[in-house]
């Protein structure tokens, strides 16, 4: 089991040597056909997606892409999508539903991009539509948080029937730096923020936010990609097999109920009005 503190996990989760969506696609899927563009104005490199086979069956894969070198980083905007990226994701998801393909997402982003054009083109609206669409899909959806699950930009690809996390991945309402800056007006207190935010996979599993934690090799996923791929492959196979037993409306209902219930048990008993 892990010996990392939450603060150390944030560093491990951000380690550029960890496998990203492109690596997972290459390792776990065959016949990958990349799909680009939002059909409205732009192709957003920070969202990578397409059709592929998972153990022979067609699925749709979508994930945040950060890039492995500076050139790629710039092309992918360091994994921070704009509204075009989220609209591309919606397009791919609607298509997956049309053709009855399960959807597998790989979540790894510091957050949606806070830029001028992103706002102009409706960043908030694009994320909101992603959430609404995902909540109603009638195909199986599995999300894996592989690195940083940053804010609404991560959640926009993670309204799934099963949300899994790699052991040292993190998932939070905002980056620890942003959190410290908002609450304490001091982004240098991010270490302290990590300690209170409950952003580790283990904390989130306990809180009922994620349904499974996938063991990483000693030291973290960056030390042994092959071992990480084997774990993720096995988990995806198992979860897909379980979801295959459910019909379309039941899948949408299970996903809806799961997110509908989040945080409910925490509330001091307030009777529902009839």
């Amino acid at each position, binding site marked *: 089991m892990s010996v990392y503190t939450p603060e150390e996990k944030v560093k491990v989760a951000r380690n550029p040597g960890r496998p990203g969506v492109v690596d997972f696609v290459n390792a776990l899927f065959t016949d990958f056909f990349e799909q680009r563009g939002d059909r409205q104005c732009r192709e957003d490199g920070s969202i990578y997606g397409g059709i592929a086979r998972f153990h022979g069956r067609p699925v749709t894969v979508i994930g945040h892409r950060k890039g492995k070198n500076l050139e790629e980083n710039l092309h992918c905007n360091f994994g921070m999508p704009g509204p075009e990226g989220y609209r591309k994701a919606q397009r791919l998801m609607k298509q997956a539903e049309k053709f009855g393909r399960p959807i597998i997402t790989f979540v790894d982003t510091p957050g*949606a*991009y*806070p*830029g*001028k054009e*992103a*706002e*102009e*083109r*409706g*960043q*908030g*609206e694009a*994320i*909101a*539509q992603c*959430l*609404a*669409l*995902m*909540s*109603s899909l009638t195909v199986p959806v599995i999300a894996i948080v592989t690195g940083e699950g940053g*804010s*609404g930009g991560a*959640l*926009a690809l993670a*309204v799934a029937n099963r949300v899994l996390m790699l052991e040292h991945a993190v*998932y*939070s*309402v*905002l980056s620890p730096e942003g*959190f410290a800056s*908002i*609450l304490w007006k001091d982004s240098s207190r991010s270490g302290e923020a990590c300690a*209170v*935010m*409950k*952003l580790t996979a283990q904390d*989130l599993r306990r*809180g009922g*936010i994620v349904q499974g934690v996938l063991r990483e090799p000693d030291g973290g996923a960056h030390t042994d990609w092959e071992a990480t791929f084997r774990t993720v492959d096995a988990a995806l196979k198992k979860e897909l097999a379980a979801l295959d037993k459910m019909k379309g409306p039941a899948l949408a209902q299970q996903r*809806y109920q799961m*997110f*509908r219930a*989040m*945080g*409910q048990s*925490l*509330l*001091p008993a*307030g*009777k*529902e*009005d009839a």
Partner: protein
Amino acid sequence: MNRFFTQRRDRLLTYQAMREGKITAARRSPCPSCGAETPATDWSHNLQVCPKCGYHRPIGAYYRLSMILDPGSFQELEEKLSPSDPLDFPGYPEKLEALEEETGLRDAAVAAVGKVQDHKAVFVVLDSRFLMGSMGTAVGEKVARAAEYAERHKLSLVIFAASGGARMQEGIFSLMQMAKTAAAIQRFQSKGGLYISCLTHPTTGGVTASFASLGDIMLSEPGALIGFAGPRVIEQTIGEKLPEGFQRAEYLLDHGFLDQIVPRSQWRHVLGQLLSLHEKGGRS
């Protein structure tokens, strides 16, 4: 209830002091937008809109409901729903308690059934005095329950947003309220329900990126700041100043994200018209 009487007593004492000439009702306060000094009574007669420049001051949830609903039609929903502290965040319970004392609200949202020009609908109003109207578990739950109530009773849903976004103090549980509210709205709409989203100053972050952007009809008050990222974060990210009027309601209207901008004095008229155009809450 105690609070109610305390506030009432304070108000009566204020009136008494005014009668005795100890304080004057005409205390002026400056408009944050144009700087013009306006007497408190004029702010009040003008629905807290600056008579000089039209700046819309943020207002409380109950006041807004009293402005919009037919007299006597207000019936609060989920009044008892109170917030939780899932992170055991230092100082958070004390902060909630102090705000409850100060505002009379249990959390940042008020839900109600009421009528506008005799058309019954479900209303949720966020209140920016309560931790910037931020959405934690209680606010998310209230929005979802309001949508479910509207569905059960075949009513339309009207939400007035005013929020800094997800509530940091409740961490990931706040983030999940985005998914919860978007899902609840989606479900409500897919069953034929009409949802009118009314954006007021400011509407940002996780509230913009969830239920507030999903209206069948999208409206806003003049001058409201509406966006995902706040202007300061954007300026820091891109390293340049944002143009005048960026992320304001008028700008969003120009960019295709709003149907109309509605001045505060017109809400009753516009909502009444829209509700009358959607009999049975929009269901055929």
